[in-house]
């Protein structure tokens, strides 16, 4: 018996507009740029049209066609906010999927942030904010957690156990698994009841990254071929976890690559094998046993070949921006100014720090592709200018309340 668990990450940040020193003290609009590369509204509408709407339609059709088919999503709070603001029809179509009872919604930090690393207290607040948001939008309480970019470690598991989730998702990175397989459930040290679901990165990335790669020996990838790879796990695992960005469909892999046709046929092909079945993450946690303790003393993530934190932290700009942002925590929260607090939190979204990454900048690879700024340096400049303005608002607020 082999279970197949599909989880799609749905997230768009509030990109910081081109914000120059002249704007400091004059404009507190940080997230509205009219240029096509930085306009959050334009980008959301484009992604909705290319990905969210057609993929939601495909999945809805598949859920109707195959009563055993199941999926799961994590939608960041900032994505939900943007859908409510710019694309309510898209939000409705997500609600329809959830309405089938076979699309589970996971929990994450509302602001898709790195808060666990910089402020565990703020992290907990953002988890609770997200929980409340999911409750208000979909009317249900999420039971399974996934952290920003699948960032995970023992200490994260510790906190997630305290927050009473039944399972947590992580990257099935080689350096944490060693000889073990990602196709089983595990548990973190000291928390036998918290189930750990690990991404099968080979099979996941076959779809997410290699699907349209003509130089790949397995090109073209068809649903029967992929199903045969899943079948091959039978007997050698309890579950295959396919975790990927939702934007894989139609945005990273364009419609003309055949990605939608692939998805259209996948559930049918998987279900042809009588031992296969679909699960959502919480069903997997209920049904399948942990096969052992997995010790992860350091952070892993699903980013880049390194699968560590180096996409968001570690260069002098990223570290400066992050430390200065989180240093404001107490002062910002003390103001009880909801706009100020919301702006501060929107600045925590991990994408801002990803844009400042210089690791691969000259090679023109995926980082460049996903960077709406001309360079990591320009991303840093706008971010720090915004932070200066935020500090200015903060000190005005504080001096007012002191008088």
């Amino acid at each position: 018996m082999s279970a197949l668990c599909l989880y799609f990450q749905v997230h768009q940040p509030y990109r910081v507009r081109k914000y120059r020193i002249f704007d400091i003290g004059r404009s507190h609009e940080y997230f509205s740029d009219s240029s096509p590369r930085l306009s959050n509204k334009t980008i959301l509408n484009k992604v909705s049209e290319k990905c969210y709407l057609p993929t939601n339609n495909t999945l809805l059709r598949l859920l109707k066609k195959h009563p055993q088919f199941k999926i799961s999503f994590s939608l960041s709070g900032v994505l939900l906010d943007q859908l409510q603001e710019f694309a309510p029809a898209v939000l409705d179509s997500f609600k329809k999927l959830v309405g089938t009872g076979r699309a589970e919604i996971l929990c994450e930090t509302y602001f898709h942030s790195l808060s666990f690393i910089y402020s565990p207290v703020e992290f907990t607040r953002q988890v609770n904010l997200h929980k409340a948001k999911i409750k208000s939008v979909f009317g249900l309480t999420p039971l399974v957690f996934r952290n920003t970019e699948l960032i995970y470690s023992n200490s994260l598991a510790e906190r997630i156990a305290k927050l009473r989730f039944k399972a947590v998702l992580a990257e099935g990175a080689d350096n944490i698994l060693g000889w073990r397989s990602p196709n089983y459930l595990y548990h973190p040290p000291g928390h036998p009841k918290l189930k750990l679901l690990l991404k099968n990165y080979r099979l996941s990335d076959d779809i997410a990254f290699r699907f349209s790669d003509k130089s790949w020996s397995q090109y073209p990838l068809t649903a029967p071929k992929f199903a045969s790879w899943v079948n091959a796990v039978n007997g050698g695992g309890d579950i295959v976890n396919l975790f990927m960005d939702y934007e894989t469909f139609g945005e990273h892999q364009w419609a003309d690559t055949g990605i939608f046709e692939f998805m259209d046929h996948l559930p049918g092909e998987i279900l042809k094998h009588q031992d296969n079945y679909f699960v959502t993450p919480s069903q997997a946690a209920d049904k399948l046993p942990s096969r052992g303790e997995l010790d992860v003393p350091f952070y892993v993530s699903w980013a880049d070949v390194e699968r560590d934190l180096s996409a968001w932290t570690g260069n002098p700009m990223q570290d400066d921006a992050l430390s200065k942002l989180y240093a404001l925590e107490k002062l910002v929260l003390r103001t009880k100014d909801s706009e100020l607090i919301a702006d501060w939190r929107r600045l925590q979204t991990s994408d801002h720090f990803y844009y400042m990454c210089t690791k691969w900048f000259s090679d023109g690879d995926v980082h460049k592709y996903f960077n709406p700024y001309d360079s990591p340096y320009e991303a840093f400049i706008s971010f720090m200018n915004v932070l200066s303005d935020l500090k200015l608002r903060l000190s005005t607020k504080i001096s007012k309340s002191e008088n």
Partner: protein
Amino acid sequence: MPIRVLMFGWELPPFNSGGLGVACDGLSTALAQQNIDLTFVLPHRFPINKGGFRLVFADDQPSDWSNQSPYLHPTSSPAAYIRDLLLSVRRYARNARRIAAENPHDLIHAHDWLCFPAGISAGQVSDRPLVSHIHATEYDRSGGSGADPIVYSLEKQGLDEADAVIAVSNFTKRLLTTHYFQPASKVNVVHNGIKTEEFGFESPSGTDILDPLKKAGYKVVLYVGRLTMSKAPDNFIRAAARVLEYQPKTVFLLAGSGEMESQVISLAARLGISDKVLFAGFIRGTLLHQVFRTADLFIMPSVSEPFGLTALEAVASGTPALISRQSGVSEALSHVLKVDFWDIDEMVNQIVSVLSHPPLHDALQANGRKEVKGVSWAAAAAKTIEIYKKVLRKN
């Protein structure tokens, strides 16, 4: 059998006034290291010795060098100056016939319009193919208008008669196809390189001239280049005035001379920032290296810059660079700040940011120094040799 190249240049360091001499030196040395049998011709006798390749002086008379460089502050009126220069160019071309006969070669390589007539004459004698190398055009020098028609026609002739053309950037290639009507297939892009070892980062030699300012807490923003319209030193001053509103403890240093000097000085005075603007004049060697190393930021605001070697020198010295997108070097470097030359607002935004955020400075410095190592003369020479081979196959 090594390829024998007869190369016509105009200047070599230390007897150079700008990038042309530096580029010829870097390329020639690297070509010789890659087994090219190189004879480098100079128009006049200079007291220099070069390892790796042969030097030939077209005229045995020692030159009054400072009067023969098109890149220095003209001492006479522009028209008289061009006239004198043209006389030297023609004399060089006459001497080139003899040199071609005396020095057996497989092909001829000539740098910029000053040497094109020499290259063409040499080819008439030896009937060998000509490679014309463009480092800068009259179009760049004049800032797009008022190009000298004689200079333009010499450039055009040098390009038309060439079997292959080398441009120092795609930026220059576009210019050659649009304003000189060269077919794109004939123009090859070879970016300049840099001898990074000459811009040692860790080895401060002697006392730094800017030490007192730095100790007093001032940041230094640097401009290096001729004070001429195409390099927009006036925009540097305009940006400076606005940066000072945000970062008053900043000094703006201009290293270079040129016909805009008095204009730039009076602009600084009019904007009330004369006390924050320093003019170092034309500097070279150790002093220039020191200035590069001391500066917190190097700026190249050019309106039209075929390449821009000084940007490579700055980055190799560990100084972050802010460069105009209207430059060739912006094609070769990623880890620099880039700005459209007309966007002074953005220039100010970026300058203030570098001065205000040391981590931005440090990231640009570290990544830039790593990147610039790959922009080498060896790579430029290898590309050039491919072009030689292509030309020789056709002939």
